[in-house]
């Protein structure tokens, strides 16, 4: 059964490029959302297998979105990989404490991203 991956990122180019790359590399169904709120909605509706969540977003950022996902029983078990432009290890540890499944630093190698997703999906 094809796994569904939700990409939540406010940058259109990143969203699209990542979607194309992952579709080429893996046999996954890619859905996207351009904001935290949209992402929460998509997650609730589509129940994706993995969520790739951008950290720095206007309005509702990645942390807040993640918190909401965790608060919702329908989405709280969906693995989340943070996509962040914050490269500092200390910043990344902050995300680890949130019990996320992974942190990928932008810009990322699409194949490395795919490997991480594959690992999470088992």
């Amino acid at each position, binding site marked *: 059964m094809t796994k569904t991956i939700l990409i939540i990122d406010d*940058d259109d*180019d*990143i969203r*699209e*490029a*990542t979607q*194309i*790359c992952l579709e*080429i*590399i893996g046999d996954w169904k890619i859905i996207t959302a351009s904001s935290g709120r949209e992402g929460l909605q998509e997650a609730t509706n589509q129940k994706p297998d993995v969520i790739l969540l951008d950290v*720095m977003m206007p309005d509702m950022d990645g942390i807040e979105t993640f918190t909401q996902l965790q608060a919702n029983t329908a989405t709280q078990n969906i693995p989340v990989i943070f*996509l962040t*432009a*914050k*490269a*500092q*290890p*200390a910043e990344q*540890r902050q995300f680890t404490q949130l019990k996320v499944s992974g942190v990928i630093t*932008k*810009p*990322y*190698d*699409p*194949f490395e991203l795919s490997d991480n997703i594959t690992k999470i999906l088992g």
Partner: protein
Amino acid sequence: MTKKKKVDSLEMMLHRMIDRIRQSLELSVILSSTVAEVRAFLNTDRVKIYQFEADGSGEVVAESVDSQKLSSLLGQHFPAEDIPLEIRELYLRERQRTIVNIASRQIGMSSSVNGNSEAEIKFREVDPCHAEYLVAMGAQSSLVVPIVDRDRLWGLLVSHHSLPQIVTKNELEVVQLIADQTSIAIAQSNLLESTRAQAKQEASINRVGEFLHSMTEMQLQKALKQTVFAVQGSGGRVYITPQNTESEGQLFVSGEQPLLLAQEEENSQSFVPLEKHPSWQTWLKNTLQSRDLALPLAIADFDANPLPSDWKICFKPTRIKSIITIKLEYRQKILGYLSIFRQGIDIETIWAKRPDRDDPRNQFPRKSFEIWRELKQNKARPWTSSEIELAQTLGNHFAIAIYQYQLYQQVRALNASLELRVQERTAELQQANQKLVQEISDRLKTRASLERLSHQNELILNSAGEGIYGLNLEGITTFVNPAAAEILGYGVDELESQPIHEIVNHSTAEGIVYSWQETPIYQTLQTGEIHYITNEIFWRKDRTNFPVEYVSTPIREQEQIVGAVVIFKDITERLIIDRMKDEFVSVVSHELRTPLTSIRSAIGVLSSGRLEPKSSKSQRLLEIALNNSNHLVRLINDILDLERIKSGKVTMLKENHNAADLMTDAVEIVQSMADKAQITISVTPLSVQLWSDRDRLIQTLTNLLSNAIKFSPPHTTVHLDAQLQSDGTIRFEVKDRGRGIPPDSLETIFDRFQQVDASDSRDRGGTGLGLAICRSIVQQHGGQIWVESILGQGSTFCFTLPIGD
């Protein structure tokens, strides 16, 4: 001659004689004129004055004679028995005058005792012996009048006439008057002689005294010579006894001396002066026992007084016959001995007969007055009482002088010693003075330097932009610079001698009380540690606060902490700028990464060949784009990384980690890279707990390892080792067999973009920031990093880290 004329002549003669006696004090002149006048008066052939010696013998000492009638007897000695003692007694006691007339065989005798000059002349028959005696002297008549000097029979006035002559009572009385005048003259003359002798003695004493009492230099030798002369000795000596057991006795000699005496000592024989010989003390003791202690020890005649047996040897070769020794004693202290020697003399006596042929037992009168000379050789001349007295007086002078001289010597020695001490003390004082002058000069220079320095310090403190204040151990300000006062809003006077923590640092920005004992400044005072603080606040006078950065440094005096100096500045503006910079960096980071993410993803998939086949050129271009896109990503990462670490914005999250784990983790990260480069990594893990930021330390190790791999030829080994050092640090080493680093690049290689070869960043994929990041991380851990390298042989990158915080 008429009777009147004769009386006139008699009176004149008496006047003349008395005048002469008055005019002359010289006995010989008086006696000569007496005999001349008496002979003229009596008109006799010989008038003589006969003087008795102490032994009863006598000598004719003055004479007037008609040599054609009678012989001269002047200078002749007559033995005592010629005028026996009982006759002499008669002359003295009864003042008996005798008139003998050989022709009438009569002798007239008249006593003038008790001034009875008018006594009758009693005649009787002359003793035949007496008559024969006179006849033998050529006299037919004689008149004898005694001359008495006080209670002593001094002599006789005798008139002889070669013809029988009658002496009248008047004539006798006149002669008696003359004899009396002669007695007075003799007494006067004796007085004169005595006075003269006394004057002479006093002169001698004065001369000796002058020599002796010259304080600066006692002329003992001269005094001794004068003394010998004064006492009419032939030699003399002064022996000064030693003042202590260490000194020697001193001997001064003048004139003839006895020889040294032999003294037996242990296994030897030495020769010593008399005074040092044991017999001297024995002699003194024996002699003193039999004498008055105050008297000098005088031996009149060695022939008469036996000497100690030892002394005979030393006196024998000399002509010394008598000795007088004065004990030189002053204030119960025996200072020495003054001895004067006297030689024997030759005595010639002219006798009116030969004594040995005129046995005193023979009562017959002598038949002849033929002159006979008797010569006695080397006879002792006894010491007179005045000589003994003089010697004693001079001895006293010697004793006083020697005592004074010894005192003077002691004083001089003391003075010399004192002077020496004064000189030494003066020298010491001069030295001390010089030292003091030097010290004062040094101090003045030092003070001038200090004043200059103090002025400079004041200028520096006053000019410094940072606030500076000093504290004592109690936290009270000892100085405050104007900048500090201005920053805090106080006057300098308001802050001096104040507990400054209570004024400026009493609570946190949130108003929580911050006790003095909690402050790093207090710690500095307690432990001497220097604290750099960037996250505290100070309060102004107007109760507003500001973020402050300060450093507290201990002030030490001779290893002791006596206070601290705090240098602070208001960092409000800097924090604003930092915040802006952080925001800028964050934005830049995000804004650069975001477009790159799309580019990187797109090129990554395109270059992977997953889409439709492309020409080899387009494939190559995609690979180039991918490489440079990756390089750009690393560059952005490294720039941001370095900036944050250097600015201290990145806090090292230190925890205890096992160094071995950090090493193996780092190796694991670069292992695939090494495999690709065909490099073997040899790691020797060291299991030691290390207080460090794990990620940053692994970043450092991987940076160094990846550099080593990049610059090592294939099939070589890169070593990672660690050692625990004695100073409590761990030393990490990453060793490669690469091309090495030129010596001039060993330091600069740690600066940004300072690769040895500019092409390295392209060829090796480095950003040129890796070593700069490593250095920043190591320094943030309190360690050091450096490289050792031999060109062509390889490099070893080393860094040390303290194991504990």
